[in-house]
């Protein structure tokens, strides 16, 4: 199965370990990810001030995917949701599509409905399948506990996304963790918002939002928090120290990407998966892998 890789803005600059591990996992599972350097920004950051612009930028990406004739696969939950929502809206509203196409004509592109947009994890599950992934596992991670974090846009807005998970009772990420033999911690805040959406306007508020979950996990004794979105990573890993300081508490919640967990299960080394780049290191895991 082939797909067009949509990296977005953050992943290729800040989350190389995520990108690296995802690409490795995809290759191991027989998925071909095609790159197009022209792909950039999904348009989400424009939405608050100018939806029409945000929609146009999203349509640009959709039009590019249409030219490749491939589904668009994103590592970022926000990009995936925004692009899927744009597709959902444009498909249902031919007038909006016509308006967008008028603008796209200026850059030599045209939007046509029917582009499949999906998150990388959802893509793994729908194309490879949980059973097949399980069958490819070579390293048993039992003894480790990962806290899956679904966040917002991996699940919502649900009507624009593939109906893989019940947004109220999501299971997919936990199943992927369990496929490696590890335990998935079903914690109360697994579908909470990380606060990344308000980081720009109210850093303190965003910190409180992320801090609540970090405190909860700090008490839960997990191997690591497992993420599938660079925005969540900004909050839970990037801001962890800052948050600990502002909350006047000590926090050391290791953070990994779920692709890294899968990669370990598939037999790859921590180096291959960029685990060295993780800032709050999952020491327990790294020690076990080294030993």
């Amino acid at each position, binding site marked *: 199965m082939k797909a067009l890789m949509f990296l977005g803005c953050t992943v290729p600059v800040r989350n190389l370990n995520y990108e690296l591990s995802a690409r490795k996992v995809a290759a191991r599972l027989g998925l071909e990810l095609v790159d197009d350097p022209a792909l950039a920004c999904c348009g989400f950051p424009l939405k608050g001030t100018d939806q029409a612009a945000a929609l146009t930028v999203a349509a640009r990406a959709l039009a590019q995917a249409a030219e490749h004739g491939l589904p668009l696969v994103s590592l970022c939950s926000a990009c995936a949701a925004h692009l899927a929502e744009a597709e959902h809206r444009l498909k249902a509203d031919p007038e909006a599509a016509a308006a967008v196409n008028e603008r796209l004509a200026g850059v030599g592109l045209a939007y046509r409905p029917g582009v499949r947009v999906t998150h990388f994890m959802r893509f793994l599950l729908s194309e490879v399948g949980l059973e097949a992934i399980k069958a490819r596992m070579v390293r048993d991670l039992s003894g480790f506990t990962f806290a899956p974090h679904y966040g917002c846009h991996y699940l919502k807005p649900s009507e624009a996304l593939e109906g893989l998970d*019940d*947004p*109220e*009772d999501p299971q997919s990420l936990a199943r992927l963790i369990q496929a490696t033999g590890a335990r998935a911690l079903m914690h*109360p805040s697994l579908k909470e918002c990380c606060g990344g959406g308000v980081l720009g306007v109210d850093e303190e508020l965003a910190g409180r939002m992320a801090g609540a979950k970090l405190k909860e996990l700090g008490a839960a004794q997990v191997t690591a928090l497992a993420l599938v979105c660079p925005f969540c990573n900004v909050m839970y890993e990037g801001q962890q120290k800052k948050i600990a300081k502002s909350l006047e508490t000590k926090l050391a919640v290791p953070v990994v990407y779920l692709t890294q967990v899968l990669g370990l299960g598939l037999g790859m080394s921590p180096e291959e998966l960029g685990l060295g780049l993780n800032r709050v290191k999952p020491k327990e895991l790294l020690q076990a892998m080294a030993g």
Partner: protein
Amino acid sequence: MVNTPPSTPILILGGGVAGLAAAVDLARRGLACTLAEREPALGGRARDFCCKAVSACARCGACRLADLLAEAAARPQITIYTQALATSARPAEGHGWQVELAPAGPAAPLPIGPGQPLPGRVSLAAQAVILAVGPQPFDPAGKSSLGYGRVPGVISALELEARLVQGAWEQRPAPAKLAFIQCVGSRDQSLGRLWCSRVCCGYALRLARLLKASRPDMDIAFFHMDVQDYGRAWEEELAGLRREMRFVRAMPGEVAAGAGGPEVVFALAEGKQMREAFDLVVLSQGLGPPAGAGALAQMFGLARTQDGFLGRAEEPVAAGAAGVFVAGACQGPRSLTESIDHAGLAAAAAAAYVASTKGAGRG
């Protein structure tokens, strides 16, 4: 195997309170009818309802089932088949309907109450048909955020009633803290159910009052948007209920599993977020069109209301096909007493139809 009377003036599908009331009403008018019930026992949902009286009758109407059963059994004009399912229907020559009935499932070991199991496949000619197949309560799992089916301690109101009927709390202690959540599957555009189910407010509050009577210190919270009226002295009763339990005017955003029982997440009027644990959270499910509404509508060529119930909203009992009438809550949400009364009008209309077509088209 057809060794039963091949024709009946009026065939009633559904032996709940509405079907029984229609049969009794027809018998009072001196008309013979055949009542076909899918289950082994007559009575429908009302069979599972307990008496809600505390110091006085709560006017729930559940006791009227016993009256109807006794009367239906005693009236010679009424032929009753249980475990009988209508499988197809076609307009008979001239007027009326030819309806095929088939046994629904293997025969129950013992007949329960009046009626006999359908002896086999029966093709019945009826001059008129009354559909009284009842409503379908909403499956609360369809409102995922409220945790039904996955959060321990979240049950439906009908399940609570079943516990009461079985006397579950006579053996073990009743919950000390309980929440009712209203409008589950009602007044909900996101579920495509944009109607008020009418009966759930009165139903839940009567259940709550009954619980409170058995355990006066029980802390009951009633999450709702608007309390619908129920009967003539309702405002006075409501004033009393408001003193006995907490009325919270908010729809919870979530019911989540918690260490001390299911936790209801809601907002106070001034916007403050609350998270409160209860021993038991009861979801008051709304009433929807009968499960087989589509099949029945197709079978008889019926009209359906905007909300998918059988018949037409503007005509109280006409079903949109000649000689077919609807009775009770399959036409729209109704209480037990309302269903019983409504069946009376359906019976009157069916009787008038049969009288008006007498001699026309037959033979």
